[in-house]
């Protein structure tokens, strides 16, 4: 593990619910189902779990304050050390990092990591819950929405590199197609670039099919120390590097064309994992794709391709499952769905399954050994990265 004093940590089990527009199950029940499945997948019982960490996004989605406490029984946390973590959309990849600390530090041998989101309770639309993330005096009086700032960022990105909406729509087409093979998928479908361009304009340049849906769902993984992991499975997947970084909340004062905070998070994770040339050493990646341009933006921040070249790379087919650098083979947020925190953990699980050769129809060829998952969130602000190795 490179850094002296830290123990090796493996992912040994995983569970997930369907991602749904609206589920009958409560958030607690979704958390329970994913956690139960994760435990069963590696033959553990709740009493074998030393500690629990839970990731879930704004309380305002559920209209329940202290959502960490509310969900805690579903996450198997009662009478155990338990903490909720939250870094906006970056939460789903931060939660396993949080779990990693628990074990790498030597404090615990097993950790259940649960991520849950139930967005459907909020009306008229969960987007409304985001108004209060903007500065109350200088921004809220203008009634901004998150869709606006995504649109502003996408436009800036397109302008900087001379990209068209067509170039970017290819990501949505790819991911929705990939999701056809994902068992949890909510909005997998075969679409064309024309379908994306002809879908309803929400806030130019963002159309309906450029954007992931609001979803209900949960995901869970089990982390274990080296000794325990080797007893449980022949195929542990090691967490080799973790990184996280936060940029300014004065989001309009930095240039939106490039996510520096993602680069900083990635450098932290790569240093820990001993990765010098990410574009050569990373075999497969799941960057966060709540909007199609975000996948490209994040590939550049992760240094998986040169700045401004991610669209070209995508058009060449390199990011398809059969390409030289498969990106979002799961189908991503655009195809599987986007229950915020659960999406990040779904991405971690995809790399887990891919590196174990257990991804079924989604399996990428070439026996991948090193992969990464990344999430992003807050006000165009936070990057979270996990590098995994078989």
């Amino acid at each position: 593990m490179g850094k002296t004093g830290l123990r090796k940590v493996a992912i040994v089990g995983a569970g997930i619910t369907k991602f749904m527009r609206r589920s009958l199950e409560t958030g607690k029940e979704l958390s329970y189902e994913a956690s139960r499945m994760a435990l069963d997948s590696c033959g553990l019982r709740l009493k074998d779990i030393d500690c629990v960490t839970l990731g879930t996004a704004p309380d305002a989605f559920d209209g329940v304050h202290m959502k960490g406490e509310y969900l805690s029984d579903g996450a198997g946390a009662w009478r155990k050390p338990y903490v909720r973590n939250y870094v906006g959309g970056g939460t789903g990849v931060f939660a396993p990092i949080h779990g990693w600390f628990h074990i790498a530090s030597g404090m615990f041998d097993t950790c259940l990591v649960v991520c849950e989101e139930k967005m459907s309770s909020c009306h008229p639309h969960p987007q409304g819950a985001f108004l209060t993330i903007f500065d109350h005096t200088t921004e809220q009086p203008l009634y901004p929405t998150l869709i606006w700032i995504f649109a502003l960022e996408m436009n800036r990105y397109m302008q900087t590199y001379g990209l068209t909406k067509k170039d970017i729509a290819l990501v949505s087409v790819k991911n929705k197609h990939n999701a056809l093979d994902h068992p949890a998928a909510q909005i997998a479908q075969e679409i064309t670039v024309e379908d994306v361009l002809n879908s309803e304009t929400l806030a130019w340049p963002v159309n309906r099919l450029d954007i992931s849906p609001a979803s209900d769902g949960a995901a869970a993984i089990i982390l274990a120390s080296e000794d325990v992991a080797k007893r449980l499975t022949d195929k542990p997947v090691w967490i080799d590097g973790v990184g996280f970084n936060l940029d300014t909340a004065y989001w309009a004062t930095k240039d939106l064309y490039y996510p520096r905070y993602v680069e900083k998070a990635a450098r932290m994770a790569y240093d820990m994992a001993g990765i010098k040339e990410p574009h050569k050493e990373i075999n497969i990646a799941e960057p966060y794709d709540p909007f199609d341009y975000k996948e490209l933006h994040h590939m550049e921040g992760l240094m998986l391709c040169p700045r401004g070249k991610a669209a070209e790379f995508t058009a060449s087919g390199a990011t398809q499952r059969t390409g030289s650098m498969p990106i979002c083979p799961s189908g991503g947020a655009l195809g599987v769905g986007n229950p915020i925190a659960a999406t990040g953990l779904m991405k971690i699980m995809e790399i887990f399954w891919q590196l174990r050769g257990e991804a079924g129809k989604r399996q990428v060829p070439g026996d991948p050994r090193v992969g990464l998952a990344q999430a992003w969130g807050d006000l165009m602000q936070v990057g979270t990265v996990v590098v995994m190795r078989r």
Partner: protein
Amino acid sequence: MLTKKDLPGTPLKSGDLEKVLTLKFKPNLKYDWDNGVAIARYLEELKNGKIIGKKCNKCNRIMIPPRMFCELCFRPTDDWVYVKDTGKVNTFSISYVHWDASRIKEGEPPYLPAVIEIDGASKGMGILHLLGEVIPDEIKIGMKVKAVWKPDNERTGAITDIKYFKPY
């Protein structure tokens, strides 16, 4: 390999969504936010029809919105500096949705949110505001714009004392 039927979760159908017990309540909560020293002055100057920033003499950045401490140097900021009420469009959108993602009415003009880099502040220092008096299709990144202020007697010391920015 896992299939859909192996996974827990019961998706509801559209019809089911009508049959929900909805809890509606209006808590009598009001938030009385303090603006702090820097933003209070910013608002006071907006009322005067001016935009003010604050300078850090260590990194030499002129920052808007103004702040009492430089978050990079982590020290108090120094001088108050008036910046211009002109700037250039860093990026923009043409939005057909309100803040809660509901669609604007047919025929209603779209919102034109933009990041505007303010002249006189350090490079890249932008604020979120709206554009106006412009045909949406003619907006360009890099376009020069100027604040359109509400009349003196209608200004209240708010970011909305600037109605919008228009090309000039």
